[in-house]
């Protein structure tokens, strides 16, 4: 595959690219432009970039005021602060007020790496999922991140976009189609369905190879839109293979695993096992090592898939 690139880099590039096409696009940051990569947009459109300083709650509501005045604001910070610290601003002034604000949350999950648990947000998807009307996009690579940014610009209403710090391979080519709310079937399989999101899509594809070597046929589905969930695709997969493993770089509570389990328990009860950060906080370490340490790598997914298949009997 091509070079690796972190989806936060893709986010910054996409903002700068679409800044030319969408003149109402404005970008806010909270003293993290060098890290969230909104600095790339700032360089291209200095008059439409506003640093809010280290004051995320004000930034979120300033974005609301801009949205109510016809702008399309992207409010950017680390997921921990955008979704965590400012949850109530997001809930009341973006969610309940239903304002057209896009939250660009970078440094999601444990692949923040060495900064450790205070900055590793494994709870943001769970928090955002509880807000009525919130769209949640979690792109897997550079291609998808770019398309997610444009889809967010084009849709009207609240949208939470989740990006990572760690460089990840480019999985999808120029012909890749992206539609909010539509999952993407990446590989066929008959024994187990691996339903993955974000950086775990790469791990799920690798796990499929490991499983194939052992004679187990796994399908792989990419769920880039966690809300609204593509329930039709999830149910179709469960019906076809009879068991599911969800894969996400997020707590096993309330994220993709929660969403899929809630859907299938009501519409097609089958074994659902969850790959994700267990009910624990993160820790410091090189990002790639942490992926294995927290049981998110291809080997862990393959082991979980075998356990899921065994549960079918």
């Amino acid at each position, binding site marked *: 595959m091509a070079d690796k690139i972190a989806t936060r880099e893709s986010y910054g590039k996409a903002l700068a690219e679409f800044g030319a096409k969408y003149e109402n696009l*404005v970008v806010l940051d909270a003293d993290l432009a060098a890290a969230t990569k909104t600095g790339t947009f700032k360089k291209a459109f200095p*008059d*439409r970039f*506003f640093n*809010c*300083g280290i*004051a995320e*709650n*004000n930034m*979120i*509501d*300033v*974005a*609301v*005021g*801009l*949205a*109510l*005045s*016809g*702008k399309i*604001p992207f409010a950017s910070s680390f997921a921990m602060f955008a979704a965590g610290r400012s949850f*109530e*601003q997001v809930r*009341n*002034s973006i969610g*309940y*007020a*239903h304002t057209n604000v896009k939250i660009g949350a970078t440094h999601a999950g444990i692949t923040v790496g060495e900064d450790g648990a205070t900055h590793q947000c494994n709870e943001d998807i769970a928090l955002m999922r509880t807000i009525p009307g919130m769209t949640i996009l979690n792109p897997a690579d550079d291609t998808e991140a770019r398309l997610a940014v444009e889809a967010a610009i084009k849709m009207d209403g609240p949208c939470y976009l989740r990006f990572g710090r760690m460089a990840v391979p480019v999985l999808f080519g120029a012909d890749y189609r992206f539609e909010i709310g539509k999952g993407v079937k990446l590989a066929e399989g008959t024994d187990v369905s691996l339903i993955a999101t974000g950086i775990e899509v790469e791990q799920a594809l690798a796990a499929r190879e490991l499983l194939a070597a052992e004679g187990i046929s796994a399908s792989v589905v990419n769920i880039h839109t966690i809300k609204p969930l593509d329930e039709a695709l999830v149910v179709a997969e469960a019906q076809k293979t009879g068991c599911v493993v969800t894969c996400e770089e997020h707590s096993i509570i309330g994220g993709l695993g929660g969403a899929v389990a809630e859907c299938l328990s009501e519409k097609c009860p089958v074994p659902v096992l969850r790959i994700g950060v267990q009910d624990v906080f993160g820790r410091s370490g090189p990002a790639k090592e942490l992926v294995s340490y927290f049981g998110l790598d291809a080997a862990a997914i393959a082991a979980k898939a075998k356990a899921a298949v065994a549960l079918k009997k």
Partner: protein
Amino acid sequence: MDKQRKTELAEIARRVRVGIIEAVYSAQSGHPGGSLSIADVLTYLYFEEMNVDPAKQDDPNRDRFVLSKGHCAPGLYSVLAQRGYIPVEDLKTFRKTTSYLQGHPDRKHTPGVEMTSGSLGQGVSVAAGMALAAKIDNADRRVYAILGDGESEEGQVWEAAMFAGHYHLDNLCFILDLNGLQIDGSLDQVMDPRPHDEKFRAFGWNVITVNAHDFDELEAAFKAARACKGKPTIIIQNSVKGKGVSFMENDCGWHGKAPNTEQYEIAMKDLGER
């Protein structure tokens, strides 16, 4: 201000107060005290100061108003009713299950309500964002927000103050309703955020202090706010919580309580309706 106009505004403000009492009495809940303390400044904003028109609610260049102290929704709804955005009789549906007049302002369903509010400290930041948008557009519209003195204990108010000062949002005008009382008691008993003037000046604001119940002083303050370039303005209005209803004045017990029938009759008499 000429005498006749002042008399007209006083009459509108009286009707706004009557609407506040009608709404809270009908709902048997709500926040009369802080609504009554801002009745005069709301009247001034909607009938003198702001470029707003119920017939042109989508005009992109209208002035914007945010009630950051959203619990004073009865005050906002009542002035919107007087200005022709909603029927006066709808005030009696306030807080009822099927009514569009929610306990706190809901922008999605209420004509004239620019922003949903109620969670304190957020409306001021939204107003700052609206003012920034006007600057980006190089438009001359202005943005106003009323915040409470108790609300100013929220840290986000000072984040907004820092932001608006930093970006020199001289099209932004806050009105601080300094009635000295919050739910649990007086400011000095609960948590004293004063002095506001020195704090806002330190963040780069133009500060004006007025008597909240004097239209001449309000007029002078809003004119001075318009004239001030390069800085946002805050008008600190010294107000009487419960203003106009004898037994509610300066009593924090009437922050969030509805009058009973007997008290309602006294209030209506105080407001010249009986």
